[in-house]
């Protein structure tokens, strides 16, 4: 190092340890997601409105379920929260990252692609945990009394995130940023209305036997079984796993980082 003048800019390159890079990326993406008004609307405001509206609406219209309305709606709203973050928010954010050259820029930083992906997953999980806390507090205030199966709940949470995240990246990878924004919101609304997320497939009549195979229906049911019946719904979890594998396969074949 004898030629080194040791000035301010004297080279001393090197990547931070992998876990530190992933943690930094996850924290950064989670912060940006929560700072964005539209994303926050999707992540927290809409699920809370759906929960309160559903419980109040059932009460006023005298609609009854096998369990109290709040016990029926809350697991579905948790499923909705996973869908909004892992699918819609992730797709929109990734679409604009591609557009603004963020992914290209990070491509010349020490963060490898695997680290970027891990950071995104970390950000999703962070935001989802936050959503779960807020929704649970509101639900408990409305008298939620769950019978929890922790294994079923955690698996539904993770497999639901994996399935929707792989589909979100698929959309972000094949469409332009604006088209991703439109498509991700549209799919979210369609699944919210007709995807058996918040209401069980049985409420959809004959159509219910179709929607239970959608990731939305499977995630909603897995959540309901885990929080209402205290059971692990292996069939629904298997459906989510198949969606996750199919989504990952298609994404890996079509996604380009730029």
């Amino acid at each position, binding site marked *: 190092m004898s030629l*080194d003048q040791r000035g301010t*800019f*004297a080279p001393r390159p090197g990547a*931070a340890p992998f876990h530190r890079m992933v943690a930094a990326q996850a924290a950064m993406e989670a912060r940006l997601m929560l700072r964005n008004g539209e994303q926050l609307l999707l992540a927290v405001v809409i699920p809370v409105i759906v929960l309160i509206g559903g419980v109040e609406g059932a009460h006023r219209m005298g609609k009854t379920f096998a369990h109290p309305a709040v016990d029926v709606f809350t697991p579905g709203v948790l499923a909705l929260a996973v869908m909004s973050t892992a699918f819609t928010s992730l797709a929109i954010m990734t679409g*604009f990252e591609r557009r603004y050259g963020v992914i290209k820029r990070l*491509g010349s930083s020490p963060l490898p692609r695997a680290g970027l992906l891990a950071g995104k997953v970390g950000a999703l999980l962070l935001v989802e945990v936050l959503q779960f806390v807020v929704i649970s507090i509101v639900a408990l205030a409305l008298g939620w009394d769950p019978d929890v199966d922790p294994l079923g709940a955690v698996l539904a949470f993770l497999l639901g995130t994996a399935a929707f995240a792989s589909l979100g990246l698929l959309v972000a990878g094949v469409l332009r940023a604006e088209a991703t924004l439109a498509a991700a919101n549209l799919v979210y609304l369609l699944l919210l209305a007709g995807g058996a997320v918040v209401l069980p497939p049985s409420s959809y009549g004959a159509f219910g036997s179709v929607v239970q195979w959608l990731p939305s229906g499977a995630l909603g049911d897995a959540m309901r079984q885990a929080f209402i019946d205290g059971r692990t719904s292996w069939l629904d979890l298997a459906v989510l796993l198949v969606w996750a594998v199919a989504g990952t396969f298609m994404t890996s074949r079509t996604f380009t980082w730029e």
Partner: protein
Amino acid sequence: MSKPVPTEPAVAVDGLVMRYGDKVAVDALSLTVERQTITAVLGPNGAGKTTTLETCEGYRAPQQGTVRVLGLDPVRDRSDLIPRIGVMLQGGGAWSGVRAMEMLRHVARLHAHPLDTDALAERLGLGDCGRTPYRRLSGGQQQRLGLAMAVVGRPEIVFVDEPTAGMDPQARRATWELLEELRHDGVTVVLTTHYMDEAERLADRIHIIDHGRLIASGTPLELTRGGSDARTATIRLVVTRPFPPGTPDSLRSTLGSETEVTQLDELSLVLSGPADASTLAKISGWCDANGVLPESLSLGQRNLEDVFLELTGRELTP
């Protein structure tokens, strides 16, 4: 124990060919960049500068030829190379809602021994806009943030693509000073530019490329001196009415074979050759004899603009 000083060049491009569809962007380009220098790749827009840089940065694999950076293959040895280089893209590269300092700190956290981000931001005049979201930064501020992101990881080489495009003169000077300090501290700087004054002022070595080909290489002095006669100067002649047909030949025969004549358009041309009173007198005489009224006749040292013009018959910055 001291590390052996590496001897291979910082960058070695050999026979690089890159095509987009039918269009050849880089055409059998070969060039080297020595360590701890500032090397400018100068050329007009669309000359293939960015494409060449992006193969060095590992964004694109060479279609033909080889590229080595610090002796490594930017595609095959990507994970070893990338932490050692800094890259400033031509634009973008940040989330629209991210704050300037937040972005810089994020990139710093991805490195093992980053610079002090506050000091770096202060140095680049980003102190006042640290909390401003990226989308509300001016073009010049975005450029400076891009430069800060490129150097914050203390790289051995920085690649900067058109670093001062869109900057005001003050920011431009600050950027030049920073690049000079990088070189002083042992960093190799590779910059693309289409500003000849930037290349002339900063670069130890200049590679001029046009249509994807290397057309000249050398120090600024070597290039502007043309390697031969130090008295060579450039005379620009602008007239009020179009030149008559055959003007370049007619002028050449008047002034002698030592003088190069390049007609730019119907009203202007550039002569390069010995600059003395007799040449100027001959030009006036030629104008008189051909019924041409000079609007301006200016005399100057050859600069890179003139070199480019002589090599290509076109102006670098139209």
